[in-house]
């Protein structure tokens, strides 16, 4: 065990865990941040996606010891009031079925839009293909990302 100091959602956390513990389980089991989901544990489904220094990252295969001083953002910290353009678009398009995959979908999309605020349909597709939705909400995910991108482009977004 070792103590790791972590910068998550603009706050400081500490966890006393084994160095190889994936960030996913540190968030869930030790810090009470359960919005980040477990789906496969082998970087295949995207349910566990968080941002590490702005990059969409599969937290299920990212050991806590590799984080260092990097800044982590989880779904809980994506926006102050649940009003990130993607979160609003998800509601407007009524995307979720079971909802389990959606935090990961949104985190992947948020990193995508940060890099490419006006993605084409193909760019959305290739950016989101790493995320599985077993309920098959892909059409609406695509629509919501598109909707958010039009809104993001016309308003100034808060930097987190």
């Amino acid at each position: 065990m070792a103590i790791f100091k972590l910068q998550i959602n603009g706050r400081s956390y500490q966890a006393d865990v084994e160095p190889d513990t994936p960030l996913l389980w540190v968030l869930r089991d030790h810090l009470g941040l359960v919005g980040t989901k477990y789906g496969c544990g082998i970087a295949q489904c995207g349910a566990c996606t968080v941002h590490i220094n702005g990059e969409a990252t599969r937290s299920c295969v990212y050991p806590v010891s590799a984080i260092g001083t990097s800044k982590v953002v989880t779904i809980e910290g994506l926006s102050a009031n649940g009003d990130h353009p993607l979160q609003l678009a998800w509601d407007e398009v009524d995307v979720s079925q079971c909802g389990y995959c959606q935090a990961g979908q949104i985190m992947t999309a948020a990193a995508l839009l940060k890099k490419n605020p006006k993605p084409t349909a193909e760019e959305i597709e290739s950016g989101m293909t790493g995320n599985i939705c077993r309920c098959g909400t892909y059409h609406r995910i695509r629509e919501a990302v598109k909707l958010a991108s039009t809104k993001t482009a016309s308003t100034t977004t808060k930097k987190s």
Partner: protein
Amino acid sequence: MATTTDKSRRDFMKLAATAGGGLLLGFGWTSAAADSISVLGEAAGAAAGGVEFNSYLSIGSDGIVTIFSPNPELGQNIKTSFPMVVAEELDVDWKKVKVVQAPLDAKKFDRQLTGGSGAVPHSWKRLRTAGATAKQMLKEAAAKRWNVSVNDLTTENSTVIHKASGRKLSYGELAMDASKLPVPTDVQLKDRKDFKIIGKPVRNVEQKNIVTGKPLFGLDVYREGMLHAMIQRPAFGMKVKSVDAAAAKAMPGIVDVVTFKNNVAIVGKSTWQVKKARQAVKIAYEKADNIESTPDHDRLFKQLLDTSNEVVVRRKDGDVEAAFKSAAKVIKSEYQCPFLSHSPMEPMNFFAHVRPDGVELVGPTQTPERARTETAKLLGVAPEKITLEITRLGGGFGRRLQADYVLEAAELSSLVKAPVKVIWTREDDMTGGSYRPAVRYRFEAALDAQNNLIGYKLRGVGINSGNPTREDNFPSGAVENLLIDSVEHKSPITTGPWRAPITNFLAFAEQSFLDEVAQAAGKDPVKFRLDLLTKAKAKPTGAIKYDIDRMRGVIELAAEKSGWGKKQGVFQGFSVYFSHASYVAQVGEVAMVKGKPVLKKIYAAGDCGIVINPSGARQQMMGGIVDGLGHAMYSKLTFKDGLAQENNFNNYRLIRMNEIPEIECHFVDNGIDPTGLGEPALPPTGGAVANAIFKATGKRVKNQPFIDEEVFKTVS
């Protein structure tokens, strides 16, 4: 090392809070007194305020109406659509409705389960009556107060109105008085034309919680002192011979390694510690039953299709032998599907705390009552001593109809005498059984010289499939001479209902075969089906258990919307199926791109009666089609020595965003009482796609997954 791991989480959090310097504790458990995370909606019954009118609703003096949603929510959107029905009859302002998941309560609710798309038909009248009854009581309370006739009162937007005098009282103001009145037994339900909420798109009531990552799911449940557990289960047909857990037990965070019923459970303080220790447990297995592999099943299928032993006749009309003897043309074809895993995104998990005074169960289940009954039996505890809270389900697809993972948690908690959450890894989920059974069908059709279908035979053989046919479905009733039978092979590989049980594959096989018959008869596939329906209506053979006119309705709607037979440059395939009381027809459109078939679009026409929530219904339809397409195209489980070879999403392929076609949904508007939509859109998809592929390539795909078929061999 060991000393710090022994600290309870609460100690840890205190330590972290003081040592961190500038550490902010704003989230969930970190700011709460208790060291736990409660899932939203848990223990809803106790938490809800207001005056209770009936099992379904209570009204607060602030006018907030709390509607209890009894059935587990797994993405079928029931937690939104059911309250809509109650709110409609109550005449309430939807913005003032709060929906909470009711815990298991057999006294308040019957059929508190999710499966078979059965909740809507079961509950439609009950929900409406619950709303209408409360509305009537509110009106009567107002009538008393104003000393007017209840017949002179109307309601609107959570308000009772006396038009003549212009007086108004809000539901909140009337709730207390109203709740004390006798419950009327004969209330007037609304006329459909007066619906204000039903039929309008209403967004998922949980959407905001989902997109902000609130704890909602079983996996999100954390309790003080809770231990985490993973279980190593044997391959099918094997049993535990010996366990060497010494090394695992010495690993950090591990509390115990317990063997029960051929399960070896690793119990510890965190998921990761348990997962690591699991690899250190050495288990030797021995043979307990047949050890089967996929090639064994392939051989077996061929045998069973020709056997005369243990054949169960499911339906027999007319004289099939004579019909085939006199036939001018006989068409014969076989179709096969592999086992499938349900693989909901949230893997199986359950929390159990077995205490001397009772049992607490929390988690995702489609059948809470079954889970409680079986837990009671297992532990020898009275069912009344067991509480069960239903969390949101991260998908189910039938897997959570089983109680196995609930029982594991309960048994383990009683063995280690601590609260335990059992979690299945994805690998456990795919190797742990209860699969969609593997099935093979043989169809035979006899045509007379005028190309009329005069004889029809279907034999289904399956592994733990029960009856793999649906003998009364179309085209039964439309063919004078018909024989449907089945043979089942019993296997240690466990199976269970998988979204649209049996019909998820049968519909594909049948609708593809009917396409073959239409082709052999030189008829248009749509006209061929419509002619059969006309015949079934004019001259039915035996019992007909589908509504001929409703089936015709969706066929015609799908044909119309897709421009059937009128398009250039695309190849269309047709399919229609009746399952779970709803009707869905689909047209698949394939284009040839660089010599390869590419699915471009699916048109769907559904008849589920009144559409309660168009937004939810549309998504159920789209999701069902994506599910049907994905599994038909890509997914399979194969076995080697009783062990599933595909065990995670790297080798068990699920459909992804870049593989979906455009989907266009239409609904028949006929005002009939609603039926479910969680399943019925899935069965027709495979056939619509396969028949379009045939039109485009001249090749039939007959086995799932399609991707392994010849026509796709060169296609990635």
